[in-house]
């Protein structure tokens, strides 16, 4: 009687058994890499805007405070996107002929709003609050990066839950002194002691920071 299985059958079945483990594990691993990639998180993506607004020019070069335009950032969940009136406060007099600002003037004259495109888009089940982060000593640049260097605004943080939690688990080293909260450049490297001191200064209770309900409702 002839052999049912070829001599190589042993090898093939071994490879198949190995693939049975490798393929699912590899799929999961690949999925995890893809979900953390810039393509999915939107990190470093420069979103097209109706006006080529430069944060670098307005903050680092002219020295306008973040709160001049994002005026509700200290009191509200939303930092506030300035109305056209805020742009026109200066641009009724400056660069009045610039082509770049034509959409702003058009918006001012016609009363239709400028439709800025969102750069930082969190999932709808995350209830992020700007004011509570500032009251807790998280500087603008801690999440938004060196805004003072950005000619066009982009998302610097991955905004994954893993990233949020990395700070919620150990916030100390991510806090900034009150005087530098609104600087357009991040302050470099804080020591663990400084972090502890800042936690105490801002009176942060770290016990509830990783509760589900801290961010989700």
């Amino acid at each position, binding site marked *: 009687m002839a052999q049912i299985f070829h001599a190589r059958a042993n090898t093939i079945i071994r490879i198949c058994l190995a693939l049975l483990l490798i393929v699912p594990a590899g799929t999961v691993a690949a999925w995890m890499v893809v979900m953390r990639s810039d393509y999915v998180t939107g990190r470093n993506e420069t979103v097209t805007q109706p006006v080529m607004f430069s944060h670098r020019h307005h903050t680092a070069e*002219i*020295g*306008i405070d973040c709160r001049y335009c994002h005026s509700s950032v200290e009191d509200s*969940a939303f930092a506030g996107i300035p109305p056209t009136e805020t742009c026109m406060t*200066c641009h009724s*007099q400056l660069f009045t002929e610039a082509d770049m600002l034509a959409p702003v003037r058009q918006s001012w004259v016609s009363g239709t709003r400028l*439709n800025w495109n*969102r750069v930082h888009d969190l999932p709808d*089940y995350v209830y992020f609050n700007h004011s509570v982060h500032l009251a807790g000593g998280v500087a603008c640049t801690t999440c938004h990066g060196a805004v003072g260097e950005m000619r066009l605004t982009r998302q610097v943080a991955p905004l994954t839950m893993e990233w949020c939690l990395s700070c919620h688990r150990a916030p100390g080293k991510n806090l900034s002194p009150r005087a530098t909260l609104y600087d357009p450049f991040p302050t470099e490297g804080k020591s663990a002691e400084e972090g502890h001191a800042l936690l105490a200064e801002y009176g942060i209770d770290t016990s509830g920071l990783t509760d589900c309900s801290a961010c989700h409702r």
Partner: protein
Amino acid sequence: MTRVLFLCILALAACKQDMVDQAKDKAYSASSVWDDGASARPFVAGTVARGDLARMAAVQQPPEVDAALLARGQERYGIFCAPCHGLTGRGDGRVVQRGFPAPPDYLSDRLRAAPAEHFMEVIANGYGVMFPYGARVAPRDRWAIVAYIRALQLADGEVTRGHPARDAVPVGGGR
């Protein structure tokens, strides 16, 4: 078998991303319901917002001037006024240096003699080419700024050019 099938269906369900973009309106959400495409609606004429009466009363009633109010005034002045009026109130802020018409000098005799209500009025409603700041600066903060302007007027008005106090230093320094 049923159990395996159920697990497969559960695994598929976990891939749904519906909850990421929920059918609800949040701040600045776009909406197809209204013609202008925005979910935020303009106020109906004559709307009285919560806290409006308190805000109106706060305009009439100057708060007690203490160190905390002055510190608040200094901070708000730095945010909203210094870009044009300059850190010492001379009217030489960064935006003026870039071509905006220079505002009057706070240290001038006319503005030293001006009543506090004049500054309150100008902050709220604007003056000349200055836009109104009433929507951006709350009444109590307006009073704080006025107190700080008074402090600037009391401070040494003859600070020479090149003195650190006159530098309209951009936040973040000269990087």
